C-alpha cells in the first residue's frame, strides 16, 4: 500500500499505453497501400497490346485442352477433416500453456498436467486410428495404379 496517502497517479510516471489493435490496423493500411501503389505505378508504365494468341493459358506450350474447373480427385480430404480437429485442439492447448507454469505452483503438477495428458492422449489414439484406417495416406487413384501396372 502507498504509505504517504498520495494518489498513485502523481508518483508513477504517466506512460502512454496505446491500443495495439490501432497500430495493427495502421500496418494493415500500409500493407494494402504498398501493393496498391505498385499496381498504380505499373499501370502508368506498362503497355497494352491485346492479341488473341497470347491470352491462352500456358500449359507447357501445348494448345490448352478442356476446362480446369472439372471434378477433381482431392486426395487429402480426409486429412483436411483431421486438420479441423487438430486445429481446434491447438486453440484449447494455447490457454493451457499460458497458465501452466503458475498452475503447477498453485495446484501441483498432477492437477495441472494430467488432464491435458488425457486430452492429448485421446487425440493421439484418434490419430493412430485414422493412421491405421489409411486416412493420412496419399491415396493413389485407381487409374494411376493401373498405369503403373501396365508399364511393367
Amino acid at each position, binding site marked *: 500500500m502507498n504509505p504517504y496517502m498520495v494518489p498513485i497517479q502523481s508518483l508513477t510516471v504517466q*506512460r*502512454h*499505453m*496505446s*491500443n*495495439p*489493435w490501432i*497500430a*495493427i*490496423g*495502421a*500496418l494493415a493500411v*500500409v*500493407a*494494402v497501400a*504498398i*501493393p*496498391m501503389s*505498385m499496381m498504380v*505505378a*505499373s499501370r502508368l*508504365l*506498362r*503497355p*497494352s497490346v491485346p492479341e488473341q494468341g497470347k*491470352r491462352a*493459358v*500456358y*500449359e*507447357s506450350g501445348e494448345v*490448352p485442352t478442356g476446362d*480446369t*474447373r472439372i471434378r*477433381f480427385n*482431392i486426395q*487429402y480430404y480426409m*486429412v483436411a477433416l*483431421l*486438420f479441423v480437429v*487438430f*486445429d481446434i485442439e*491447438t486453440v484449447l*492447448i*494455447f490457454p493451457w*500453456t*499460458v497458465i*501452466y*507454469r503458475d498452475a*503447477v*505452483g498453485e495446484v501441483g*503438477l498432477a492437477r*495441472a498436467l494430467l488432464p*491435458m495428458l488425457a486430452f*492429448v492422449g485421446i487425440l*493421439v489414439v484418434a*490419430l493412430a486410428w485414422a*493412421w491405421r484406417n489409411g486416412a*493420412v*495416406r496419399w491415396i*493413389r487413384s485407381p487409374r494411376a495404379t493401373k498405369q503403373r501396372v501396365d508399364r511393367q
Partner: protein
Amino acid sequence: MQATATGNATGNATGTTVDMLVDVAGLGAYGPGGEAVAALAVAAVIGTLMLTNTALAGPWAKRKITAAFTDRIAVNRVGPFGLLIIVADAVRLLSKELIVPEGVDRPAWDLAPLVIASSALLGFAVIPFGSGLQLADPETGLAYVFAVASIASLGLIMAGYASNNKYSFMGGLRAIAQNLAYEIPLVITGASVVLFTGSLQMSEIVAAQTAPLFELGPVAIPSWYAFVNPFAFVLFLVANMAEIGRNPFDIPEAPTEIVAGYQTEYSSVYFVLVYLGEFIHIFLGGAIITTVFLGGPAGPVLPGIVWFMVKIWGIFLLTQWARSAIPRVRIDQLISIGWKGMLVLSFANLVLTAVIVGVIAG
C-alpha cells in the same frame, strides 16, 4: 571482457515504438486519432524496412547465393556487385504488359496477389525488431502472428483456382495439402515454448530469453530457446520450411513438374506481388524463429536491430542452402512426413516439455 548477449534486448518496460512516439510528439492529447497517426508512421517504417530486405533478397541475394552454391558468377554487370540490378529488375517487371489469360475468375485472380503480399507484411506488426522498433505488443502476440501467417494459404488457393490453368490448380491444391500438414506441428511446437514463458506477448518471450543459461568461460550463453530446447528448434525450422514452401518442401511450385504452380499465369505487377509476398513470408518465418528461439534482437556490442537483421538473414541463408542442397520430396512423402512424423514428434515435444517444466517449477 565479459560478453553478454543480453544487453540490447527490449523488455516490456520500454513499450512499443508507437507509445514512445505518442509521448515524444505529444500526440496523447488527440486520443485514438493521435495514436493512429503515430502508428501509421511506425507502420510505414516497418513496411519500408521489410520491402528493402525483400528487394535485396529477391533480385540480388538469391541469385548471388544460388550462383555461389553452384559455382557460377551471378549478376555482376549493373553497379557495384551487381546491386543496381534491383532497380533494373523493378523497372523491368513493373513495365511488363499484364496479360490476363482467357477464362480467369476475375475478382479472385486480381485479389490473390494482394492477399499474398499484404498478409505476409501484416505479420510484422508484433515482431520486436530491437532498438525500440516494435509496432504493437498485444498479449496474444504469438497467436496473432501464427494466424496472420496462415492467411497466405488463402491467397495461394485463390491464385491456383482462379487462373484457369491446370498447373496452377495443382499448385494451389498442393499448397493447401502442405499447409494443412505442417500448420499443426508448427503451432504445437510454438506452444511448447509458451510453456517456458507463460505468455504469448512477444516482448515477454524475448525478455524471458535474456537470463544466462550457463557460463562458458568468460562468455555467458543466454537462455535462448534454441539452446534450452534444441529439439523444438529443429522441429520448428522444418515445419517453417514447409509453411513457407521452400525446399525440400517446394512442391506447390515445383518448376520441373508443374511449371510454376499457382504463379504460372501471373505477369507484370501481379507476378511481382506474388513473388514479393513469398519473400516477405520467408522473412516473416525467419522473424518468428528469431523472436521465439534466437532471443529476438539480443546480441553483444551491436545495436539490437542489427542483430535481428543478422538472424533473419541467417534463416534466409538456410532456406537458400536447402534450396541448393536438398532434393524435393514427393507429395505422398510430404503427407507422410507431416502427419506421421512431424505431428507425432511435435506432440512428444509438447508433453516432454510440459513434464520437464512442471518438475522444475513444482
